[in-house]
């Protein structure tokens, strides 16, 4: 794959003996050490490493928690409290895992936003992008099932509401619903299967991450100007030490706010009702999912009208479609220019899309009857946001490629780096405040 890589012969005889039989170092060397990486990557490209770190953090803390957790409807709530109270360092392990879920999603949203802005999904990186969407879907499933495990009121009712969504699918909806719940209602079998799957899925995520990295290493990284590498010596640097050190630096920076919440306010992103043990007979006054699901929850609820199909089914189609549409993005965006930096009109639509996504997040946390502007409530105005969300993918991106006049592209990565004044060089930390 990479002609710059030469075979590494260890000087230590024991290592050489092993390497002759199992060439681990020569397997890792071209992918993690010599891997030629565009020299102009900015800090938005560090979230891949940060996400790998977060996945590892969640797996390690999760395994420790599983050693003390009891997946039983009568005992789960108290066993989580037991971890917090009586397990050595238990409050910290639990807090890191709980806060870690939020920061994992924060990082994945940064990572996806970067891909959307710089056109990282375009040829030849379609499969890389699709694998990323699969990871995101698996993350959502894992996070949702993990949220159910403490068996508090929000856990229980989130499980009831979210599994119910699948019940709206015609014909196969009911069997799927019963399969998910392990019965007619959310109960002990639901908790047991969610625990088993919550333990399994992170390892599947890790496997898809390996494929994601493999698919990345075939075409190599996209970069902020979106012009492919033309001359390896001038346009790229070796992954190690250049990007290992930069990624490590960014990961440490990312850990500072992560630790701030994990140690000082671990329940900041949670809901007080989850400190009440699950009770099937008492419905909480408001059922809200975790913040990272709110935009999609808002899309689900915005569809409260019948249009040919029943509103419930229509809502589920919009809900599922809002995520599944990402799979088709590489073919929906018709522009030949990758980087948003060189697309004057795209930029505006992109930032409106981001603001609209945040707005949907807020809508998801409100009661549908909450007034927004004048006589209009969340139920009314959120429909506009849903329209923009889909229009961005289905109308704006396909048409923009035809009518937009992109700015001239630099001829190569090295040219764009050398032309920039030294202070504005993309490799200097232009935005450490981002973390």
């Amino acid at each position, binding site marked *: 794959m990479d002609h710059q890589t030469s075979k590494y012969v260890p000087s230590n005889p024991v290592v050489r003996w092993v390497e002759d039989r199992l060439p681990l170092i020569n397997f890792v060397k071209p992918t993690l050490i010599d891997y030629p990486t565009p020299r102009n990557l900015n800090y938005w490209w560090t979230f891949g490493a940060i996400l790998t770190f977060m996945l590892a953090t969640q797996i390690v803390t999760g395994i420790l928690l599983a050693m003390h957790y009891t997946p039983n409807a009568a005992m789960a709530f108290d066993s989580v409290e037991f971890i917090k109270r009586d397990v050595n360092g238990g409050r910290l392990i639990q807090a890191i895992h709980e806060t870690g879920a939020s920061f994992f999603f924060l990082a994945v949203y940064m990572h996806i936003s970067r891909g959307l802005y710089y056109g990282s999904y375009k040829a030849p990186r379609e499969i890389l992008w699709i694998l990323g969407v699969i990871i995101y879907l698996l993350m959502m499933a894992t996070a949702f099932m993990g949220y159910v495990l403490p068996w508090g009121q929000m856990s229980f009712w989130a499980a009831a509401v979210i599994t119910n969504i699948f019940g709206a699918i015609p014909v196969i909806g009911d069997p799927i619903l019963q399969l998910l719940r392990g019965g007619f209602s959310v109960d002990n079998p639901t908790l047991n299967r969610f625990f088993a799957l919550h333990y399994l899925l992170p390892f599947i995520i890790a496997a898809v991450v390996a494929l994601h990295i493999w698919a990345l290493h075939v075409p190599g990284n996209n970069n902020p100007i979106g012009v492919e590498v033309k001359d390896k010596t001038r346009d790229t640097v070796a992954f190690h030490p250049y990007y290992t050190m*930069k990624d490590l630096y960014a990961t440490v920076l990312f850990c*500072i706010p992560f630790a701030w919440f994990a140690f000082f*306010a671990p*329940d900041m992103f949670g809901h007080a009702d989850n400190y009440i043990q699950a009770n099937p007979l008492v419905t909480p006054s408001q059922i809200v999912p975790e913040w990272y699901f709110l935009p999609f929850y808002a899309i689900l609820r915005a569809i409260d009208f019948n249009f040919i199909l029943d509103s419930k089914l229509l809502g589920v189609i919009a809900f599922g479609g809002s995520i599944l549409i990402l799979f088709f993005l590489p073919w929906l965006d018709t522009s030949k220019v990758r980087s948003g930096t060189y697309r004057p009109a795209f930029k505006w639509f992109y930032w409106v899309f981001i603001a609209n996504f*945040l707005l949907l*997040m*807020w809508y998801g946390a409100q009661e549908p009857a909450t007034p*927004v502007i004048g006589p209009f409530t969340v139920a009314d105005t959120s429909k506009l946001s849903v329209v923009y969300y889909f229009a961005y993918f289905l109308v704006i991106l396909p048409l923009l490629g035809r009518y937009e006049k992109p700015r001239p592209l630099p001829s190569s990565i090295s040219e764009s780096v050398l032309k920039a004044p030294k202070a504005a060089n993309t490799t200097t930390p232009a935005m450490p405040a981002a973390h």
Partner: protein
Amino acid sequence: MIRISTILAAALVALGLAAPAFAQDVVIPRESWTFAGPFGTYDKNQLQRGFQVFKEVCSNCHTARLLAFRNLDEDGGPEFSEAQVKALAATYTIDDPDADGGKRPGTTADRWPGPPQTPADLKAAFGLVPPDMSVLAKARNVEQGFPAWFFNYFTTYAEGGPDYIHALLNGYEDKVPAGATDAEGKPFALPDGKYYNSVFPGHAISMPPPLTDGQVKYAPGPDGSTVPLTVEQYSKDVAAYLMWMAEPHLDSTKAAGFEVIGFLILLSVLMYFVKQRVWRNEH
């Protein structure tokens, strides 16, 4: 290039649209708690007083199944002496099928035994089983409107529970206030066996006013200091105590946080210089 200012602008636009929609009918004041913020720690004397209120008043009806006697002498809590806790535990009788006669005196390893009445008795008396108090302070919160929740990220406000409990205990009214209305705007009608509380959602609470001035006789503190024997003081002390019972490792967690964040800041500075050094020739 994606600029931070653009992101902030986008976020502010989104939040700005969100702002007018927030409204709250009862304003629950934020009290000043010794355990608030990253630097806050529990006040041992306050927790001891709060425990006294809990033991003499609350625990007559409420359970606290996650509390063990041994917790009362652990670091970062009320920190009674081991001998005090042993003596306290021994005053309780614990059901134990292995003991002679099925009962034995309590030990420090036992959980808090709960009120003498059965849940059924309590339900008959109050119309519901009083909630378990182990994590009650974390299970209650004060709704936060827009600017507040954003600032909470920086102040680490996590005292909504104690604030609510303190306000609730001071929110009783002898009579339904004139002009009070229910959720539908009709004149408020208090159901039988309920009490009017201005803070409780729906205002009709099943718990009779539990505290009166002078009800709990605090002993003077170790330095001879005294606090007023008022409902205001009792409610603050017991809310602080309930927070400790729900979050018993708060002090040590925060202490660890300072070490971790201090280390991370130092490491990030070092990593910055390492990175700059590595990239020096490629700039």
